[in-house]
């Protein structure tokens, strides 16, 4: 099983044909066909078939590519680790976060942690696939909107907030102290989609319980995008109250949503291995800010 051959199979399946794969890989079409035929012999697996005059990936080729994806990912991960050594970040603090919390509770906690560590710790923040990163030991800490409830991972509740609306100060609703569901009728609402990692996503639960889940017209990933759109007058951002402590809402009005259920921020780390010093300090900073 040769790595180069797997790259050719991957391109063939992803791009749908030998000509397209050749273009993608920057080699000739005949080189692609030859590599695929050799791989068929080497692996003893059918990879390409002529369908209506065109060489097409077989179901085996699709399945092989699907099964090879984690193998490619770990190879990329190994190269990333080598890159980190090269730039002097081998001993870094690694954090995964859902995008909604990336620009609210995390930056001040990282700033405090770096102060406590005399600015010695390098930090790597990654977005998305929070649970996968944590389980695969790619990160030390993760934060999301709800417990993961997975064996081997500890869930730590950090803080609670409520849903708030972020809107331009000139917006007619900015004169209200709080906003009720009825106030938001006929308003274009901006918010996050489900984080996809928590067993129970408290942000989405709060949206649903407030009756706003079906009312979101523009879905964004990041808080700053939501606030920027509100600033441009595109609509009203419905976000968590953690955003108040960030600088993202400067020049904007923030109004709580009446009767909002709590939105919880959680930290997660692996249960079996003790947290190293930098991760422990960051967790303390996240929890202290909550207190």
């Amino acid at each position, binding site marked *: 099983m040769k790595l180069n051959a797997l790259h050719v199979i991957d391109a063939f399946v992803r791009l749908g044909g030998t000509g397209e794969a050749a273009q993608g890989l920057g080699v000739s079409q005949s080189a692609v066909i030859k590599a695929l035929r050799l791989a068929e012999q080497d692996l*003893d697996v059918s990879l390409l078939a002529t369908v209506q005059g065109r060489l097409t990936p077989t179901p085996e080729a699709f399945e092989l590519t699907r*099964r090879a994806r984690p193998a490619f990912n770990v190879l990329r991960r190994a190269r990333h680790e*080598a890159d980190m050594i090269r730039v002097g970040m*081998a001993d870094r603090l690694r954090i995964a976060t859902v995008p909604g919390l990336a620009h609210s509770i995390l930056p001040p906690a990282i700033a405090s942690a770096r102060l406590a560590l005399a600015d010695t710790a390098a930090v790597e923040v990654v977005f998305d696939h929070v649970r996968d990163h944590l389980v695969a030991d790619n990160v030390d800490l993760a934060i999301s909107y709800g417990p993961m409830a997975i064996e081997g991972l500890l869930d730590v509740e950090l803080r609670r907030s409520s849903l708030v609306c972020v809107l331009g100060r000139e917006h007619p609703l900015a004169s209200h102290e709080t906003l009720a569901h009825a106030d938001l009728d006929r308003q274009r609402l901006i918010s996050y989609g489900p984080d996809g990692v928590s067993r129970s996503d408290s942000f989405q639960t709060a949206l649903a319980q407030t009756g706003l889940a079906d009312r979101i017209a523009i879905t964004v990933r990041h808080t700053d995008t939501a606030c920027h759109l509100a600033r441009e007058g595109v609509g009203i951002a419905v976000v968590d109250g953690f955003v108040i402590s960030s600088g993202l809402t400067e020049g904007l009005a923030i109004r709580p949503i009446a009767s909002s259920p709590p939105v919880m921020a959680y930290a997660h780390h692996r249960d079996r291995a003790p947290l190293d010093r930098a991760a422990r300090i960051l967790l303390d900073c996240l929890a202290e800010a909550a207190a």
Partner: protein
Amino acid sequence: MSGLTPFHAGVLRAVDRYGTTVEAARQLNLTQSAVSKIIARSEAGLGVVVFERRDGRLVLRPQARALMRALGAVEDEWRDLRQAIGELRSGRALPLRIASTPSIGQGLIAQALRQLISEYPQARIELIMGDAPTELSQGTADVGVMFSPRVTDDIALTPLAQASIIALVRDDDPLAQCDFVSLTDLKDRRLICFDREKSPLGWLIARAHEVAGLDYAPFMTVPYSISAAHLMAQHGDVTLIDSLLIEAHRFDGLTRLPVAPEIPITICLMTVRSRPLTRVAARLVEILVRDRQLQPTA
């Protein structure tokens, strides 16, 4: 990734585990110089020094601990991938899905499968009893075998064998003494048969009734021949079914009678033109098509 292949990852892990190139080479069945070269090439490719030379041993540098963990994941994932390839080769990873009727499944397909599993003993096979053209169009079947199907342009039809419609009557029925029956002989009987709209066989039988100037009015409609045969409960019941079922199945207490004039049926293999087959599915098609020449027409 230049400089690091899964094989190289395995070598670096072995050196970390055993501490010397000599022992790693022994464990991996390589020469010591090959191991040394792989370490040098990997370190050059990654752009980092992974091991320190200390007292004749290779010791992992503290900075490279996370890298070594990542290499462990590479070793594990590529071992899984090799296993996955083995499963693809054996036909275990992707089930062969065949849509058919019970009588074809128990006859023609069962014979073909007997040969197929001698070549692919670990193959996973799903026999789907459903409407083969629909199953193929929806992508829930790879191969369909059915009587005289009506299909869309995207489905390729290969006639496999001829059979015919036969009548089944109870042994105590006076008709059981006949050498054959006509549809007119059955016109006052309680007919258990197929729906003319839902079944290609039902459509053929209904058309034969029309040609004979008879109404096609089964008192009970069933989806499959085997269901009809099992429902012959009362004196006077009669059914018209495909002759393949009787070849595959024995029904005590029932007599098979040819129908005159003959109502021929064609058993067709169906594949989707625009979708390639797995190797196991392609082999089943080969077996079925080859056996077609050996199979005597019914």
